[in-house]
């Protein structure tokens, strides 16, 4: 590979007590790429995200963003360096309005201090208008699905699918280079799932994000991925194009067990 990858993991390991959750994991994501991570439940996919975003610190190995190590940084510092994520379990600020959810995430991109806020200086008001416009722009990305009349409503009033969309909008508002999407299609109906595939494609082409995505829906994975990485028990078992990974016997074994067990 000619250019250095945007995100790179080198021999990353993490254990909770005696349980090895991730072991000797190497992973790289180049700028503009869409990489999918698949694997059965408990394979360490979400842990991988928690490691990259700084919620966990690896026992071994190094995580590089633009060739700079981000191990040991606080999650908010890593976010400001350009890594944003969504959560599998949906962690919105439920009692805040939809717009405020997105505006809050622009915290790292704004500067107005408390004193300036109290005095409502012109600079502070300009900045406020700027992030308001920015939030509306990100929300508009979802078009018909997350319409303007929703923006002043509290986040808890949103449907499940819209909550997932709002999480993506919120992550976009932090101004990242790379988006980590944790099961964006989970709990969505077939129409919405199809839309998610299109949405991820647009996130790359229109918004210009590099994307690392955990997904179980193989149609989505097939539709979006440049590369697929399969994990099992915290170990990378296969990496390659969707066809290579989907037909690999080790992947089938990881999901379904050994052949002997299946035929019986």
């Amino acid at each position, binding site marked *: 590979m000619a250019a250095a990858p945007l995100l790179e993991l080198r021999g990353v390991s993490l254990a909770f007590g005696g349980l090895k959750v991730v072991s000797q994991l190497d992973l790289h994501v180049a700028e503009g790429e869409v990489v999918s991570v698949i694997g059965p439940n408990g394979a360490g996919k979400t842990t991988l995200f928690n490691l990259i*975003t700084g*919620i966990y610190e690896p026992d071994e190995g190094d995580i590089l963003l633009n060739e700079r190590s981000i191990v040991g940084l*606080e*999650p*908010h510092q890593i*976010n*400001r360096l350009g890594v*944003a*994520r969504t*959560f599998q379990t949906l*962690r*919105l*600020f*439920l*009692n*805040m309005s939809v717009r*405020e959810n997105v*505006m*809050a*995430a*622009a*915290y*790292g*991109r*704004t500067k*107005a*201090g*408390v004193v300036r*806020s*109290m*005095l*409502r200086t012109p600079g*502070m008001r300009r900045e*406020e208008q700027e992030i308001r416009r920015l939030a*509306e*722009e990100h929300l*508009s*990305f979802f*078009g*018909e699905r997350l*319409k*303007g*009349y*929703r923006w002043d*409503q*509290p986040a*808890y*009033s949103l*449907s499940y*699918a819209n909550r997932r969309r709002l999480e993506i909008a*919120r*992550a976009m*508002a*932090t101004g990242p280079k790379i988006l980590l999407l944790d099961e964006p299609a989970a709990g969505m*109906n077939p*129409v*919405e799932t199809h839309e998610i595939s*299109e949405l991820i494609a*647009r996130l790359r082409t*229109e918004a210009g994000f590099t994307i690392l995505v955990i997904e179980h829906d193989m149609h989505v994975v097939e539709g979006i991925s440049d590369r697929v990485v399969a994990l099992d028990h915290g170990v990378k078992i296969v990496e390659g194009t969707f066809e290579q990974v989907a037909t690999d016997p080790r992947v089938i074994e990881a999901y379904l067990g050994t052949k002997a067990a299946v035929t019986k």
Partner: protein
Amino acid sequence: MSEPDDLQAPSGPAIGQDEWVARHGERRSQRAGLIGEIEERARRAPWWAWLVLFVAAFALLPVVSHDGYIRRVAFDTTLYMLLALGLNVVVGWGGLLDLGYAAFYAIGAYAYAMLSSPQYGIHLPTLVSIPIIVVIGAVAGFLVGLPSRRLIGDYLAIVTLFFLQITQTVLTNGDQIAGHDLTGGANGIINVDPLHLLGHPLVVQHGGVFAVTYLYISIATFAVVYLALHFVNHSRTGRAWRSLREDGLAAEAMGMPVNLLKLMAFSFGAAVAALTGTLFAALQTSVFPLQFSFPLVITVYTMVILGGQGNLAGVTIGAVVVWVMLEFLRDPGDARILFYVVGVLAIAFAFGRTRKLAVLLGSLVVFGFAAHAIADAINHDWVSGPAANGFDHALSHWVIIPTGLANWVGPVSYIGLVCLVLALTLLPARVRYVALVPTIYLGTFVWENVLLAQPDATRYIILGVMLIGLMILRPNGLLGERRVEIV
């Protein structure tokens, strides 16, 4: 709103298009007539209009009434409004359970006392000392926040409560620190200067009546703090605080420095409390350690919870309601009227305009007179309690007020009442309705003979009852918005 081109507008109702439902509230027709008109206007009034109206109402109070007591109560109310605003930053926005809040109030009051009294011979002008005290308060909040920033919930509560206790201990024993009298000990600091504005001392008593100046200063302080907090709430910091309350991990992952934000919330709340302490000390012209104890924290918490956490207008109203009610309960005559009016209203509210209500009230009256007559027939001493004229006189024919009450009657009837109320919740509806009559009657008996005799304890019992009632009717407080927990 710009729409991307490749999402064509759906024809017909698409999945997830619940606009009609979502906009239901907007279309709900307003009530007819004048009331509807007023309601509609009030709903559209901007927030600052309410603030102006509220502050003006307080400012006009001394014009309407020359009663020094009312002015004093109004002043105390503004102090509690300020305390509630400050606590709201920590609890309502930051979501941090701070049980040591009164310590910052004490720090502010003592700082003012030390900077303007013979204790150290320092007499700073108010306009100099107030910024210093606010900074001292903010720094104190920051320092308490430092060890607490990784603690949440119960653990934070324990640490902050400990801080309050240690502050009190230090203040109480501060007269013998290495042989020096630093805080005046249990006797506190006396002869504290009143506020000085531009070289003029502002006397507290004006011709024997509470001076209006202090009320104006406190309400102006309130307005300034309210405005400042409102603006902070609608800034990146306010949004970050509320994000932190909603989900700390998500806030951190979205680029918000959670630990720093917690410290800022603590500092802010503490600075407001310290500022309030200044006004308090200047008015009292003295400070004592016992004025800043845990019951104060509970009172301010009640105000914040009752008014609606996180809502500035709500916590202000909460402070007014709670403090005025506590004042009312100080005087047995007022307390009695409040008790019966609220009692009858509560019963009426619970049953609505039904026949059940009429039957209940009717049988209550009959039951009372019957019980009274029977008690009178057995022993006249049982009903010969003090009877004043008017309302009280009519009442003394209904409720049993004995003279020379035996010691055991009070506690037994009180515990009996609690047991009866608990039993009511277990009974089937029909039986409960019948049992309600003696329960309410016993309630009035306990009120007249036990609670009225001990107003201090009663105030807090009533406060507790009120909180329970409100939490059932409006779990988010008077002005609190509907809130959901993260599941």
